[in-house]
């Protein structure tokens, strides 16, 4: 066990795990078929305080303790549904975190408090059809009109986008100012001119991922989050946590998938013995276990620096890259060990395989991570 966590964290882990095992994991398959899950799950998670670990009590949180939040992230990966853990995570670690970090006390009351209670669902809208990690290339605009702002444009691949009560939107307030022309706004779902459409996906099916359009969406200045022109900086600042979350989830998910594969390997017999006892499989499991352990050590290294107040850009990018590439490889091995059953929709291996394929794409692709890492070395 890592020395990062205290005995209290381990108690929390046991509680979250028990909740996940009893109330979420048994429904993972059905929710995947439904391509949705009950909104009440948000309220239940809110009631248990699991959205609020890194937020202070005065705004409805149960912290602040970033490592307690890490425990929640790791255990939510055991739901066995990338879509559900992504939806809960996009709410807790993207929407809520932006409001907390850049919002005024009034904005905290209006959006953050109900979010931590699970009564409002949030989404973050940065990516657009023509720009993702290339944040400076965003085209959605917000034009000042008296005391209001008029937002026009579109966003896509927005987790929770299709059912969110509000969306934190990045829009250009000064199209000629490059990085410093980007500003954040909160848009409520019932605002005229705002529309959301579900996107069907290969994996992460229950995540309510949507495409959003904004046609003359009018919001008052009280919906502006942070400084005018401060959007780019805000996005950059939150990337570290977002990517750490993805790395933590990937390692915990890979561990779970590995266990699923190993259990099957010990149960299924061929030629008179469990398939896991054949040397080739023993070695493939050894390779997986080794890389999972290294991935966890790498992620905890970045996490340790992050909680000590550093901005470990390089280490976070490495962790995001390594863990998400690995999680997919482990899921692919999991499909392989299951043979024909691995290919069947009634077995969970294929879901892990489809869900983990997003890891090397979302939150900045593996190629973008390599660009970032290369840049930190002056390349």
């Amino acid at each position, binding site marked *: 066990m*890592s*020395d990062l966590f205290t005995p209290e964290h381990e108690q929390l882990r046991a509680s979250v795990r028990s909740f996940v095992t009893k109330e979420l994991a048994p429904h993972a398959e059905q929710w995947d078929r439904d391509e949705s899950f009950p909104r009440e799950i948000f309220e239940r998670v809110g009631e248990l305080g699991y959205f609020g670990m890194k937020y202070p009590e005065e705004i409805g949180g149960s912290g602040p303790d970033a490592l307690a939040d890490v425990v929640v992230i790791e255990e939510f990966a055991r739901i066995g549904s990338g879509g559900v853990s992504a939806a809960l995570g996009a709410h807790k670690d993207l929407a809520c975190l932006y409001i907390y970090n850049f919002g005024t006390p009034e904005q905290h009351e209006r959006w953050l408090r109900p979010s931590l209670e699970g009564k409002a669902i949030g989404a973050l809208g940065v990516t657009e059809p023509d720009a993702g990690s290339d944040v400076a290339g965003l085209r959605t605009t917000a034009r000042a009109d008296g005391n209001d702002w008029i937002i026009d444009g579109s966003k896509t691949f927005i987790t929770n986008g299709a059912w969110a009560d509000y969306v934190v939107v990045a829009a250009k307030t000064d199209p000629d100012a490059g990085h410093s022309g980007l500003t954040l706004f909160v848009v409520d779902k019932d605002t005229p001119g705002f529309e959301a459409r579900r996107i069907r996906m290969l994996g992460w099916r229950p995540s309510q991922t949507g495409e959003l359009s904004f046609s003359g969406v009018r919001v008052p200045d009280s919906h502006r989050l942070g400084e005018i022109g401060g959007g780019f900086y805000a996005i950059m600042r939150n990337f570290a946590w977002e990517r750490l979350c993805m790395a933590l989830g990937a390692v915990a998910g890979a561990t779970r998938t590995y266990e699923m594969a*190993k259990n099957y*390997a*010990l149960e299924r017999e061929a030629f008179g013995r469990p398939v*896991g*006892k054949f*040397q080739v*499989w*023993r*070695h493939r*499991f*050894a*390779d997986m*276990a*080794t*890389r999972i*352990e*290294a*991935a966890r*050590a*790498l992620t*905890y*290294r970045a996490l*340790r*620096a992050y909680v*000590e107040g*550093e901005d*470990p850009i*390089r*280490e976070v990018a*490495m962790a995001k*890259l*390594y863990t998400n590439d690995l999680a997919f490889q482990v899921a692919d091995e999991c499909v392989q060990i299951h043979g024909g059953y691995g290919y069947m929709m009634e077995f969970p291996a294929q879901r892990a395989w489809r869900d983990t394929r997003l890891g090397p794409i979302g939150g900045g692709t593996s*190629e973008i*991570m*390599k*660009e970032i*890492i*290369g840049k930190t*070395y*002056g*390349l």
Partner: protein
Amino acid sequence: MSSWPFSSEHEELRAQIRAFVSKELAPHAEEWEEQGDFPDLVFTRLGELGFLGLSYPEEYGGGGGDYLCNIVLAEEMAGCLSGGVAMAVAVQTDMAVPPLYKFGTEEQKKRYLIPAIKGEKIFCLGITEPDAGSDVQNVRTTAVKTEGGWVINGRKIFITNGRRADAMTLVARTDRDAGHQGISLFVVDTDTPGYKVERVLDKVGMRTSDTGEISFTDMFVPDEALLGKEGEGFYNISWELQGERLIGAAGTIAGARRQFEAALAYAKERETFGKPIGKHQVIRHYLADMATEIEAAQQLVYHAAVLVNRGEYPVREISMAKLLTGEVAWKVSDRTLQIFGGHGYAMEMPIQRAWRDTRLIRIGGGTDEVMREIIGRMEGL
């Protein structure tokens, strides 16, 4: 970045070792490589400076430090630019000598441990035989009890420090029918009658290291040569192998990081098609991959080292660290050679040497395949 898991004392030690390595070892790397040898003086100097006994108690001349001090030494020794020299020293500090401290009598500690820490007695470790390596229970060297001692017959191969050693920590079978429990350890002076260095092996890499094949013919050793209890050799050498593998992993990944740094510097300087090659995206991504894999393997080594430092016996994590560092270092050395292009292939550059030296890591101390067997079995497979 915070320097976890190291303290400021570790960092001071690191600076001292680094100064020594860069002044007294690295400048001779080329010359020693050409000779296929290095002077015993290296041990003497390391001993004088206290680097051979960093974590042993002061009463034996040690530095009284913790296990992480050994990791620091292994990491800094990678800077000597000769895998063979670093390996020879690691055999002394973390392979052949630790069993003397852990299992030896006071008398044995006085006679062997103290001079080993001073660098006055060079050690080698006799496990591997022509027909048994990681499969320790199949060693065929026998020690037969006789009046006042033991008579040893057999043969050992791939023995690092095999020509220069003053003493050997030896694994032999003391009971033919007792399986695991028929193995014992001995500490043997190499000038004992019947001890013979048959030859020094010619190797593709690690060329400064004197790797020997050694035979024992009716070699009599006194009762005091038995190290630890009779019949416990298998367990005791399994303990030794954990330290061997983890120190190997630490040195290996430190070497890989040096390779990466050399590749990075070259990628910034060498131009093709009007820009430094590192500014071509594919090379940039090669380097990003190398750095990421090094960091992951490095953190796995630290994770295992912290567990050891806490007094745990993390066979699983050590085996993983040994496996992953070897694979990563080998891949990194090959990518580095690729980035250096024709220069990487030229004998006048040290790049090819690292490539040759690194290849051993996936074989020595237990092959990749043996590591996977251990890990897989510990996973219940």
